[in-house]
């Protein structure tokens, strides 16, 4: 017949598959304890200069900052054991003694001065540079003490330093910034092994780590960009921690005893900012009506599966210094919204648009569509415009985001970093208040923390009363972990802290 030879081909194929399977079974056993993490986003190299959370998360496996942050944003001693403000413009840092870099060289004040001077060099492009650009100079007092002087009182210096990994001067001198990025050396809990862009970062434990040797022998951080594949790798036991769990997959994790969801409130406050330079949002009543018309608790439940929190009528998340505990979110009250619209001269509502990106923030497009549905209930016809990141960046630059845009400002624990976006100089504000500007400038120039906090509390009141934005949610960082894993927790700043993580 015509098809006489097909049977044989099929048998050959089956045999080849069987041989392949046998080969795989023998390769899977290893004695070492290897912790594997499934990351969503990878930086494109190991350079510290990008300063994105993904880059810092990898950098902090091999390097340490002077000041550490814990998973909730609390500051802890790192390479510096103590710090104090000698005067409003001078900070003294006492360095940890006996710390060694991975190549055996000792860490001292020279490395601190070198790192900061290198970042502040006008020719260096470094993401976090502006966080420390108020530094005037770094002076070595002795090998374990440095003094940092600032151009003006600079209360956020200590927190800013928690974003700066200290790099070894002797190694930089030998191999340069490219050499450090290609094969990083630091004082951190893990030692660089191999880096395969887009695939994996392999490290080994640093037995001499100053905070105690890690509980595992090896660490592998894999990039798995697709959310459902990331979850599959956890369920299959290939990974022990996965980042950025898609909200719709949470029920799947909760139904499995071998894995668990680990979520924490991040410091990202997701808000809908209105352009108050133009009608209709130049009228505070319209902005207030927007706030009453959106049922935020319902969106939180439906779109975020109740991970994350409701913002309390202000842009700051409750884990941030400066958060005003006396404020509450406005309740869902469509009747009041309609009444306010009528008072403002829009009894039949109006047509407007919301600019958002897709996938930048958790469930961003879903949240936008839910908002559009709710606003239609009070007569506001909202069109959702989803734009790609590059286009969004052009709109930012032109300061034309459309009537409403969705944005998430992160604070990393201090109000300064996210309140700045409502000031004129930031280039990102669509509303102006002289009192707010004045308070912001005062808070930035005050070292006394109680006094600073007072300024921020008043600023939050202004943001609440004037309502330039509808304050939606404190977004969560959602991870999932294997039941085998202990000694690790989800981080509000999305940085992996693995030095105490253990596999049972």
């Amino acid at each position: 017949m015509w098809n006489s030879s097909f049977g044989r081909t099929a048998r050959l194929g089956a045999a080849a598959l069987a041989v392949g399977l046998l080969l795989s079974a023998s390769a899977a056993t290893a004695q070492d304890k290897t912790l594997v993490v499934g990351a969503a986003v990878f930086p494109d190299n190991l350079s510290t200069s990008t300063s994105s959370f993904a880059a810092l998360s990898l950098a902090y496996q091999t390097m340490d900052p002077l000041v550490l942050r814990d998973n909730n944003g609390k500051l802890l001693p790192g390479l510096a054991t103590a710090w104090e403000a000698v005067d409003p413009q001078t900070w003294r840092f006492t360095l940890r003694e006996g710390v060694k870099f991975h190549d055996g060289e000792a860490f001292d004040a020279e490395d601190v001065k070198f790192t900061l001077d290198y970042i502040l060099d006008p020719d260096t492009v470094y993401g976090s540079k502006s966080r420390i650009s108020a530094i005037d100079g770094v002076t070595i007092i002795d090998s374990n003490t440095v003094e940092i002087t600032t151009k003006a009182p600079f209360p956020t210096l200590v927190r800013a330093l928690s974003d700066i990994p200290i790099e070894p001067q002797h190694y930089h001198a030998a191999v340069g910034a490219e050499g450090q990025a290609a094969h990083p050396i630091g004082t951190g809990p893990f030692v660089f092994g191999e880096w395969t862009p887009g695939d994996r970062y392999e490290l080994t434990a640093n037995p001499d780590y100053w905070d105690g040797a890690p509980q595992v022998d090896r660490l592998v951080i894999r990039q798995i960009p697709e959310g459902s594949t990331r979850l599959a790798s956890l369920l299959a036991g290939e990974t022990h921690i996965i980042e950025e769990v898609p909200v719709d997959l949470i029920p799947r994790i909760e139904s499995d005893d071998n894995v668990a969801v680990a979520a924490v409130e991040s410091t990202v406050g997701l808000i809908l900012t209105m352009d108050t330079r133009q009608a209709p949002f130049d009228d505070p009543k319209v902005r207030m009506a927007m706030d009453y018309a959106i049922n935020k608790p319902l969106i939180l439940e439906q779109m975020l599966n109740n991970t994350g929190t409701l913002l309390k009528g202000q842009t700051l998340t409750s884990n941030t210094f400066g958060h005003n505990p006396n404020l509450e979110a406005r309740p869902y009250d469509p009747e009041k919204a309609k009444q306010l619209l009528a008072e403002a001269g829009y009894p039949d509502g109006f047509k407007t648009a919301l600019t958002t990106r897709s996938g930048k923030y958790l469930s961003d497009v879903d949240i936008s569509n839910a908002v559009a549905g709710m606003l239609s209930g009070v007569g506001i016809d909202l069109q959702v415009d989803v734009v790609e990141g590059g286009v969004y960046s052009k709109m930012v630059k032109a300061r034309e985001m459309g009537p409403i845009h969705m944005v998430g400002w992160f604070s990393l624990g201090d109000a300064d970093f996210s309140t700045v976006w409502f000031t004129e100089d930031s280039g990102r504000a669509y509303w102006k208040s002289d009192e707010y500007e004045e308070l912001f400038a005062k808070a930035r120039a005050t070292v006394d923390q109680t006094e600073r906090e007072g300024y921020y509390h008043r600023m939050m009141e202004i943001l609440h009363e004037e309502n330039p934005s509808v304050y939606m949610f404190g977004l969560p960082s959602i991870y999932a972990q294997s039941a085998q894993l202990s000694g690790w927790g989800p981080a509000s700043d999305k940085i992996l802290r693995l030095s105490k993580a253990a596999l049972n």
Partner: protein
Amino acid sequence: MLTYITRRLAFVPVSLLLVSFAAFVILRITGDPVQIYLDINSTPEQEALLRGQLHLDEPLPIQFAIFTWNVLHGDFGTSLQFSGPALTLVLQRLGPTLQLVSLGLVLAVVLGVLAGIACAIRRDRVTDFVLSSAALAGQSMPSFWLGILLIQFFALRLGWLPTSGTGSVLHLILPGITLSLFLMPNFVLLTRTSVLETIGEQYVVTARSKGLSGARVLFKHVLPNAINPVLSFLGLQIGRLVGGSIITETIFAWPGIGRLMIGSIFQRDVPVVIAAVFIISFAIIVANLLVDIVQSLVDPRIRLG
């Protein structure tokens, strides 16, 4: 034939120049790499510094002229996000993609053609019905969905294969199958039609009636004549294969050129995108040339030149 090949190759630089010009303009006018790259807290001085380093302060035609001049000297520029030469980065990621694409293509062509032949010679019987329906179903199935289904079944339920990533030959199987299933249905349906047309020809009937065996007629008379449309189609599919590879690489966390390119497009990392586009365009042109040559070898009626 040599003249033909030379002439075809002479057009390569023109195609590449046009392709890179299009990519360059689209990337530049739709987004600002400085805004995307720098931290949101960046100062105007920092932006100006980076802008100067990337020649972004020049008008667009001059930027492209500088870029082309550098490319002519073998320098695609330094990647914005990676601190290395763009071409090196792309070449590093080429290996995994070639592995994936060759496996996908071989599986799709070999199995697709075999299934197509089986359909044709068992026309309107159960085999034909099952395989043709499967091909139609496969054609309408999005490959990201198929990939996720394969992971669920083979990696999670059966535990036979790893879910994703690299490390062994086994890691290649699921992405390879996903990519091949993305292309295979077309090969099945096209081969089926083509073989059916040829089987009806007078010379096939003659060969059968003079007593030649079924297999001999198939391989000697039918296939050489039926395979040419399939080969032309293969040339056209190389471009689609690149698109399929981007999706497959993303689902299976495969560190190939497709994912590198997508990431670089989002970052408006022009040097890397163009280096990748260059390599891919070049591969497509060469693949099509090879298809032409193979066709002329299989069918002496086709003369190149």
